[in-house]
C-alpha cells in the first residue's frame, strides 16, 4: 500500500510489553515484532470500553488517505495516565507508534508511551 512508515525494530520489545499489558483479549492479531510509526490527523477519539480508539487519517506515499482504527487502553487505565475524553480532538496532528494488524489491514494497537503531538508535545499525562 506504500504507507510512509518507519519500522521501529529497536523498540519492539518495550512495546510488546506495553501492548500485552492491556490484556482484554489476546493481542496476537497485532504484529508485536514489527511496530510502525504513523503520522496523521485525528478524525475521532473514542474514550470507550473495552478499549479506546483513535481513528487516524494517514496519507500514504501514493497520496491516498486511509483511516486507521487504532486500539488503545481502556479509559480505566488511560485515566490513570492523565487522559480524558477531551485529550485528543478532531484535527489534532499526532505521531504514534503502533503494532499493525498482522493481516495488513488499516488497524493496530497503541500505547500512551508511544504517542505525541506532531510538534513534539506529550499527549495527556504521558511520559
Amino acid at each position, binding site marked *: 500500500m506504500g504507507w510512509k512508515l518507519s519500522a521501529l525494530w529497536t523498540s519492539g520489545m518495550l512495546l510488546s510489553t506495553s501492548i*500485552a*499489558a*492491556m*490484556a*482484554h*483479549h*489476546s*493481542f*496476537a*492479531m497485532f504484529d508485536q515484532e514489527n511496530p510502525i510509526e504513523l503520522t496523521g490527523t485525528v*478524525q475521532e477519539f*473514542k474514550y*470507550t*470500553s*473495552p*478499549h479506546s*480508539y483513535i*481513528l487516524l487519517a494517514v496519507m500514504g506515499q501514493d497520496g491516498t488517505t486511509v*483511516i*486507521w*482504527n487504532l*486500539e488503545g487502553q*481502556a*479509559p*480505566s*487505565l488511560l*485515566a*490513570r495516565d492523565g487522559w480524558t475524553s477531551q485529550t485528543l480532538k478532531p484535527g489534532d496532528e499526532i505521531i504514534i507508534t503502533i503494532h499493525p*494488524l*498482522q*493481516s*495488513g*489491514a*488499516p*488497524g493496530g494497537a497503541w500505547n500512551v508511551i508511544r504517542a505525541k503531538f506532531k510538534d513534539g508535545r506529550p499527549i495527556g499525562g504521558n511520559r
Partner: protein
Amino acid sequence: MRYRSSMASLALALCITTASANAFDESKYPDWTGQWRLGPPAKWDPTKPPGRGQQAPLTAEYHAIFEANLADQAAGGQGTDPTYTCIPDGMPRAMNVVFPMEIVILPKTTYIMIEYLSMLRRIYTDGRDWPKGQEPSFMGYSIGNWIDEGGTGQYNLLEVETRNMKGPRAFDPSGIPLHSDNQTIVKERIYLDKANSDILHDEITTIDNALTRPWTVTKNYRRDRNPIWIESICTEANPHIRLGKENYMLSADGYLMPAKKNQQPPDLRYFSQSQK
C-alpha cells in the same frame, strides 16, 4: 387513607431496615474498603511468565487444546480465549482484576464488584447450603465463611467456595482452558497482609477436570484509598467480532477487516449473490 397506609408501611419498613443495620456490628469485620488493584498484565499465575510459561497442570487432552489455541493466536486468532466478544471472564479469571475492584461487606453477603466488564460476585455468608436447580452463571454461586484466625476478636479471613459456573472460560488471555463440562470448583482464602494492610491476598485454588491436580495461585491486590472509578461497558465499542469460527476486526468506517494474514472473508451463503 390509602396514602396514609402506604406511608405507614414505608415507615415500618424503614424501622426494620434501621434495626437490621444496627444489628450489623461493623467492628467484627475487617476494613477492606477502597479500591483494590492488580492491574495488567493479566496472567493467571502472577509469579510466572505468560502462556506456556505458566506451566498450567493440564491433562494431555487439554494441553493439546491449549497448544492449538496458541497456534491460532500466533496466526492472529483468539484461540480459546472467549472474552474478545465481551463474554465476561467468569470465575476464576475474574480475579485477575484487569481493572480495579471494590469489596462491600454486609453481614449476610459480601459483594465483589469488579470494574472490568462490570462483573459482580455475591458471596453468601449467611450459612446457607448449595441451592438445588440453580442455573449456572459465568461468575458461579459463591458461599463464604468468615473466620477469626488466631482468635483476635475480629474476622480476618474470608474462605469462599464457588461452583456452578458456565462457559466458555479460560484462565487468562493466553487461552489456558477450563474443561467444557464446567464442573469447576474454586476455593479462595482472602485476607489482608499482616505487615501491610494496603495489600490484600487471595489464595485461589482451582479444581477442574482440565487439570491434573488442583492449581493454586496467589493474587496480591494493592489498595488505593483515593480511587478513580470508570464505567466499563464492553459492548460500547468492541470492534472484535466472531463469524463462524473466525475472528475479524471492524475498520474505522465499520467494515470487516481480516485479523489474520490471508484470512478469507466470512461465508455469505444467506445473502443474495446479486447483492453488492
